[in-house]
């Protein structure tokens, strides 16, 4: 097995009496697409929010490239190289696609506490934004206001924002949710292209997409890891079948 880029050791988080994430131990390997699936309320989103620093863990730890980052806030994790996308595309209202990506690309500056030179006159920022624009396939829509984009385009832009921060690990929270068939195909295609050069953690409902993209799959049920394996192993697992019985086709 390759060296893990991100490791969770006994990670837990409760909401009142509910154990949303219960002693999860997992390793995500560098260079792979690793999907996390599970029925509604299994704790997938909570897990992702713990990894990206949006939520604070009650117990256990998270290690990114060997460093303990359990208590790091979201902005620090992003600077370390963990980028995340959000479930509901959270485009920045009032900004165009290009401006949005340039803002994300500003993260390559040591600090954005710069007050005089306009942001479009930083060559390295421009280059990064341009690259991300291409990678998320939005070059043609660069001057469109983010809120005027179609839902699928907003998702692409969302992924582009993550890419512009040059992450080593991408946490993607249901990138296909709510998309039509054609839009979903475009995003899957985009993810496949990104996966060539990046490590992806994918939380997703769409099983077809998961099994076509992922090299490893973890099934989460009631906050606990039910099983981890290759797509073929997961498909064949009786326990997984049982957990999903009557809910979704495995």
């Amino acid at each position, binding site marked *: 097995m390759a060296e893990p880029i991100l490791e969770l050791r006994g990670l837990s988080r409760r909401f009142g009496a509910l154990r949303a994430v219960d002693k999860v131990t997992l390793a995500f390997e560098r260079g792979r697409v690793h999907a996390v699936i599970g029925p509604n309320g299994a704790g997938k989103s909570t897990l992702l929010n713990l990894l*990206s620093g*949006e939520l604070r863990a009650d117990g256990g730890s998270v290690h990114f490239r060997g460093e303990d980052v359990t208590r790091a*806030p*979201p*902005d*620090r994790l*992003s*600077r370390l190289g963990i*980028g*995340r996308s*959000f479930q509901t595309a*959270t*485009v*920045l*209202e*009032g*900004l165009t696609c290009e*401006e949005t990506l*340039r*803002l*994300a690309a*500003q*993260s390559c*500056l040591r600090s*954005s*506490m*710069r*007050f*005089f*030179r*306009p*942001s*479009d006159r*930083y060559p390295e*920022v421009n280059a990064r934004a341009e690259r991300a624009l291409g990678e998320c396939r939005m070059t043609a829509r660069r001057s469109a206001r*983010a809120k005027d984009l179609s839902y699928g385009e907003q998702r692409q832009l969302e992924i582009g*924002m993550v890419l512009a*921060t040059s992450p080593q690990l991408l946490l993607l929270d249901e990138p296909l949710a709510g998309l039509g068939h054609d839009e979903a195909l475009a995003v899957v295609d985009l993810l496949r292209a990104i996966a060539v050069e990046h490590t992806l953690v994918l939380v997703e409902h769409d099983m077809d997409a998961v099994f076509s993209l992922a090299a490893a799959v973890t099934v989460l049920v009631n906050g606990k890891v039910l099983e981890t394996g290759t797509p073929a192993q997961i498909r064949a697992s009786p326990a997984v079948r049982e957990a999903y019985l009557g809910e979704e086709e495995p």
Partner: protein
Amino acid sequence: MTARQRVQALLCAGALALLAVAAVGDRFWLQLFGKAMITCIFAISLDLLVGYAGLVSLAHAAFFGLSAYALAGLTNRLQLVNPLLTLPLALAAAALAALCIGWLSLRAAGVYFIMVTLAFTQMLFYLFSEAPWFGGSDGLYLSQKPLLSILGRPLLDLGNRTAAYLFIFAALVLSYFFLSRLLRAPFGRVLAGIRGNEQRTRALGFSTARYKLTAFVIAGAVAGLAGYLDAALYGFVNPAELGWRQSGLLLMTVLLGGRGTLYGPILGAFLLTFLEHYGARLTDHSSALIGAVVILVVLFLPRGVAGLVERGGRG
């Protein structure tokens, strides 16, 4: 003409008109527009918070007032009249206060933020109106207006109305360019991101709390510039300038003009100046008139007068 060109033309015409007033030199208009320009500086500094960082602060008048009081203190107690000394010191006082109040207030969010800023403003207001060492509720005079002289020859005398007017004009132009430049720089883009969605911006790697605090301090310092100029223009400071009602009035100015555009609050400041100057004569119930205008603007012109200017281009 695009909306942007129209705005630029408007601003240039306005600047020329303001300069023409200086050339004519009628003292009444010098004073009226001098005050209006001070309100402009004050308003655009608040717009940095309200329109760009999404922070509705009721503490803004405090920085205006603190800087004015700082000037009064430096002049009256320490006999400092040189603006090269008093201006930076007054601005530093405003910025320092903004740093302290901002650091404490920004721990709260949304409505709580509005209320904490209100609380600090009230505290300062009572401090200045009740405590014996700030001149009390009736206010303080400047014993002398700022005067810059080299080798005994006066270079800049803010006691001279035309000089004061031109100085205020220059301060407005500089503040405007400083802020518009700031908003296009990386710092300003992060603020735009925060206004769009703070959580998302934070996930992009920006420590949003630090950016908001920095914006709060910068806005406080620019408000301090306005307060300094006000004290210098009238030679008089009063605790009422620190109160939350002043902050409220300023919020009204920003909203009336159009937040999130720097020229909007400038339009708003001039509009309100005229409304107050002429509206007061039309009716005995002018505050009801202002109340009605505010309600109508909130309901039907959410983007203020600036929204009208921009829409004019498309329609």
